[in-house]
């Protein structure tokens, strides 16, 4: 392994740990990131000549700490700040010369990122940046946000963390479900941003789906028995298992029901099923488990050759009670249409408030599809047109155009 690659590996494994470790002790996330950037730069030079040290984290921590001291002196930091640095120095020494593994405080960091005081829009980007070290420009592209705006939002969130508006302890039992849900939601948003890129044209976004699974696995490692964490992993793995089947050879979009099951990843489906089974043992249902259960029913087609739409429709009923998002309402209508008839599905679509679906593409795609089946051709053509106009993904746009031509 060359030095550059070794450093990348170390960065991958250590970055989140070091940010978490230093932030919890130092609070100034921005200063921590700067110090770590310097430390990795120094590593690139030194490790190239001397090889990667035994304990890369301890090495990086020592350098980063020195940078923080310089900065603290320059800013004429107060005594307690210097005291924190001295403590860190001791710990760094101990870590370097003992068998203890470097402390993993990324769980706390994930909860800090999804804290109620942090604007929901910035929670996911903050996680990507602090735990995975992804830069603001790349995050901005993935979420279709102006890079300067993304930078400002991250800076504001970091100021909140620095200025002590956020408790650094894990939430207590009373707060736990809500706080955990915010963490799960933020991780799932990472997956969604990678998933939307159906065509896989943008490797940076495809990688984000991988990053989401990495974060999910990290969370699972830290909380192996939490049912909703298992549910989230199961959900993401079920979706990920179908990645190769979502496109044909020409790069065109293939809807779930038309996918070639031989292209589904059996290993990922098996792992998803294991997680879902483990989650079920807790006897505490949640929205991620329900969503994963829906995907699990779809996955059964690989064994049985058919899709149990009635079962999916019932699972959606449960999901609507727990998390009635627009996406869930549209998903339920689709399942009900398959199970009980297109007219029943259309009726459910009509119940969704107009304000919520004005520019929600899947609503119009489903309206078009069901209208076509009901031979309401005028309505089908109009809905297809609107769905195409709302599309951001060229491969789905092409797919919808083909569908529209058949009306």
């Amino acid at each position, binding site marked *: 392994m060359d030095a550059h690659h070794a450093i990348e590996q170390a960065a991958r494994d250590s970055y989140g740990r070091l940010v978490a470790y230093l932030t919890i002790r130092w609070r100034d996330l921005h200063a921590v990131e700067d110090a770590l950037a310097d430390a990795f730069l120094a590593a690139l030079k030194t490790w190239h000549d001397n090889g990667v040290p035994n304990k890369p984290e301890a090495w990086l921590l020592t350098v980063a700490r020195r940078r923080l001291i310089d900065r603290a002196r320059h800013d004429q930091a107060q005594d307690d700040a210097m005291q924190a640095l001295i403590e860190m120095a001791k710990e760094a020494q101990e870590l370097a010369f003992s068998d203890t593994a470097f402390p993993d405080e990324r769980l706390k960091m994930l909860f800090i990122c999804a804290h109620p005081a942090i604007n929901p829009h910035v929670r996911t980007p903050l996680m990507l940046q602090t735990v995975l070290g992804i830069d603001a420009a790349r995050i901005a592209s993935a979420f*279709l946000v102006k890079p300067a*705006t993304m930078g400002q939002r991250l800076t504001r969130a970091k100021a909140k963390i620095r200025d002590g508006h956020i408790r650094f302890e894990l939430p207590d039992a009373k707060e736990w479900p809500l706080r955990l849900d915010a963490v799960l939601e933020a991780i799932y948003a990472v997956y969604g941003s990678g998933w939307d890129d159906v065509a896989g044209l943008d490797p940076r976004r495809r990688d984000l789906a991988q990053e989401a699974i990495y974060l999910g696995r990290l969370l699972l490692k830290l909380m192996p028995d939490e049912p909703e964490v298992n549910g989230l992993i199961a959900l993401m793995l079920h979706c990920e298992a179908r990645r190769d089947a979502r496109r044909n050879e020409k790069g065109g979009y293939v809807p779930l029901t038309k996918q070639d099951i031989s292209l589904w990843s059996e290993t990922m489906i098996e792992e998803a099923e294991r997680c879902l089974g483990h989650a079920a043992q807790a006897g505490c249902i949640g929205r991620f488990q329900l969503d994963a259960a829906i995907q699990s029913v779809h996955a059964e087609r690989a064994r049985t050759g058919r899709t149990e739409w009635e079962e999916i429709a019932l699972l959606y009923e449960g999901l609507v009670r727990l998390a009635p998002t627009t996406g869930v309402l549209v998903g339920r209508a689709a399942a009900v249409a398959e199970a009980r008839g297109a007219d029943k599905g259309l009726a459910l679509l009509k119940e969704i408030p107009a304000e919520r679906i004005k520019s929600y593409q899947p609503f119009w795609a489903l309206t078009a599809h069901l209208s076509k089946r009901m031979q309401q051709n005028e309505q089908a053509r109009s809905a297809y047109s609107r769905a195409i106009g709302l599309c951001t993904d060229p491969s789905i746009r092409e797919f919808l155009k083909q569908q529209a031509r058949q009306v």
Partner: protein
Amino acid sequence: MHYTLLFYESAEDFSHRTDPLRKKEYLAGWSHYVKALRESGVVVSGNGLHSPETATSLKRHNGKMLVQDGPVTETKEQIGGIFVIDVPDLDIALKWAARGPVNTVEVRQNIPPME
């Protein structure tokens, strides 16, 4: 908040407007998009523009006005159409820009009219 979306098209895109084989598809792409914009209720105004070679550019140089055929700057991509939309923030404006049937879009916030 008003935002202007400037849709840039390549020479190839512009040629699709008159190509008998591509014309229908090209126009359909815009009509779907315009329909979605209008029915979502965000349009303030909007127009497609004739191709850049039909442009006339005026440049004052040393006090003398020079009139030229063609666009002001010769770049690979030229403005093919403009939409002004009224949406709550830039994030939503960018989402609308991403839905457009072209590969390049510039988004700018409008200066509010003077009192």
